[in-house]
């Protein structure tokens, strides 16, 4: 299994991993403590003043020291919206991966352990889903959902829908990883030993095989969170994701996009930078984790 102390030591000795981890930590803390840290609460309508709208960042000279990064068209401080928005992006990203993980690992275990027609069926289903691409599936489902329900109802459920849909669309990746682990482990002797002493299949699966398949699952989880965050951002940018009054980073970019042309770049730029930082940090950490935990998975590209 994983030797946590060695892992930590290797982490501290790799500058890229430490940098990525640091950035991630900062962003997560920022998101978690947003209510305490943010200069304003951008969702409290009482705090907003429309007269403060469209102010540029404070260092350009026309800015207002209360709003370090400027304001958007409704007078919300960009810094504050970013802080809250990062939290929403993270919640959706992590939530979606939890759903993918549970669904994918379960189905992967079943497919790998039972084999036969269940395996063929599940893998065929996974193939079809993967070729349709998560983004496309999500676009269609969310579009239909939005068309079916009133805008207000949609807004309330958006966050759950996003977690659910991205989760259900991406299970194939986890399932395939777990399945190939299971296929490898099945051949090993400890499985035969467990069966010989009469353990039912379910116990063999969960109790014995599962712990050994967790390492690859851990490896792809980080990168999947980055993927989920990017997918959600794209969906929100299209208007199919989080609504404007409970924005994620993607929705923030969307709401600021039309103003790029008129020169108020800050409304889009800063959320975009934070999004890139978040995704890049997750990807780098995920790459590092993969290289460290399973050198066999290393792609031949260094």
């Amino acid at each position: 299994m994983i030797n946590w102390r060695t892992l930590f030591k290797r982490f501290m000795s790799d500058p890229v991993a430490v940098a990525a981890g640091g950035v991630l930590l900062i962003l997560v803390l920022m998101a978690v403590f947003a209510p305490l840290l943010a200069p304003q609460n951008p969702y409290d309508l009482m705090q907003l003043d429309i007269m403060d709208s469209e102010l540029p960042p404070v260092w350009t000279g026309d800015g207002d020291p209360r709003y370090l990064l400027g304001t958007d068209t409704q007078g919300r401080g960009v810094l504050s919206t970013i802080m809250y928005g990062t939290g929403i992006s993270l919640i959706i990203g992590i939530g979606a991966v939890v759903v993918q993980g549970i669904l994918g690992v379960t189905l992967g275990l079943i497919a790998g352990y039972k084999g036969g027609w269940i395996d063929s069926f599940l893998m065929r289903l996974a193939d079809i889903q993967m070729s349709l691409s998560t983004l496309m599936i999500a676009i269609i489902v969310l579009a239909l959902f939005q068309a079916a329900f009133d805008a207000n109802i949609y807004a309330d459920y958006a966050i759950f829908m996003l977690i659910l849909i991205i989760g259900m669309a991406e299970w194939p990746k986890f399932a395939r990883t777990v399945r190939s682990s299971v296929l490898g482990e099945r051949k090993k002797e400890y499985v035969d030993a467990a069966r010989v002493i009469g353990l039912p299949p379910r116990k063999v699966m969960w109790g014995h095989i599962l712990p050994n398949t967790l390492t690859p699952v851990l490896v792809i989880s980080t990168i999947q969170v980055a993927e989920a965050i990017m997918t959600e951002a794209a969906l929100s940018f299209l208007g199919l994701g989080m609504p404007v009054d409970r924005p994620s980073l993607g929705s923030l970019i969307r709401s600021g996009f039309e103003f790029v042309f008129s020169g108020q770049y800050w409304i889009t730029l800063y959320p975009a930078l934070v999004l890139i930082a978040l995704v890049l940090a997750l990807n780098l950490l995920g790459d590092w984790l993969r290289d460290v935990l399973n050198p066999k998975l290393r792609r031949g590209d260094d």
Partner: protein
Amino acid sequence: MHILAFLIRRTLQAVIVMFVISIIGFSIQGNLGDPLRELVGQSVSEAERQALREQLGLNDPFFVQYFRFLGNAVQGDLGTSYFFKRPALDVIMDKFPATFELVLGAVFIFLSLSIPAGIYCAIHRDSWLTRIIMTGSIIGISVPVFLTAILLVWLFGVELGWLPAFGRGDTYELPWGWETGFLTLDGLSHLILPSVALSSIMLPLFIRLIRAEMMETMGTDYVRFARAKGLSTARVRYVHAFRNTLLPVVTVGGLMIGTLIAYTILTETVFQWPGMGFLFLEAVNRVDTPLIIAYIIVVGLIFVVVNTIVDFIYTLINPMVKLPGAKA
């Protein structure tokens, strides 16, 4: 003969898939909004509404309605758009040229960049150019898809003002009704940024893929044998190694079709490109149900057709997949 069997089998599969899509589409349509509301408005009496429902066949059993829908669909009638008050299929096909040209431009740029770059990086592993390209591609994979497009819009459209970032510009109408942007200078200049944006989304992935596959191929025994035969370096690389590199690349390409369609929608949104994707999003905003369903069906069809073409191309380039010829 084998080709014919292949085509027949795939066509059958495609028909089945379209069936499934159409049933799903149709049954959803029944639950989205009330067609009557859109057609007639509020001030009509209940009795008249009921009469109208009867007349439109809205009270018939599900399958009767479905087969009517199917019959219409096969004849090209996919319902009528609430907003445009025209047949949905017509509205969509109006926008088809725009999307098609966008994808064409993107594929052209993508192919002419990714293949040379991938091959170059595989052959010259340690050159500075290779390092730049590989670093760039790692960054490219991490930047969310639509941000590169936005960056391009801002940099070339707003700041530098070199290229237009909005819409299609002037188009020229070809005799059979196809509005093309390729034949006017203005149209072409409008095509550049969106095509570059769309291709840039796929580039990093494929450059890395081609490079990895090429490196692996260059290390095989048959490449070594080709060298031992005294063949020129060019022939060894581009005929022996590259042909084998193509196979997995085409396979991966086939898997990316769904992603490509989604990215097209994103690109059209950023550039306000008047294509099918943009139309779709507007339809969602307006709750124009027939148009939404029609788009899903059309896209489903495109997806199936393109997949079949890609599979076909694959059998052409991989001799081991043909039905067996004379065995020794």
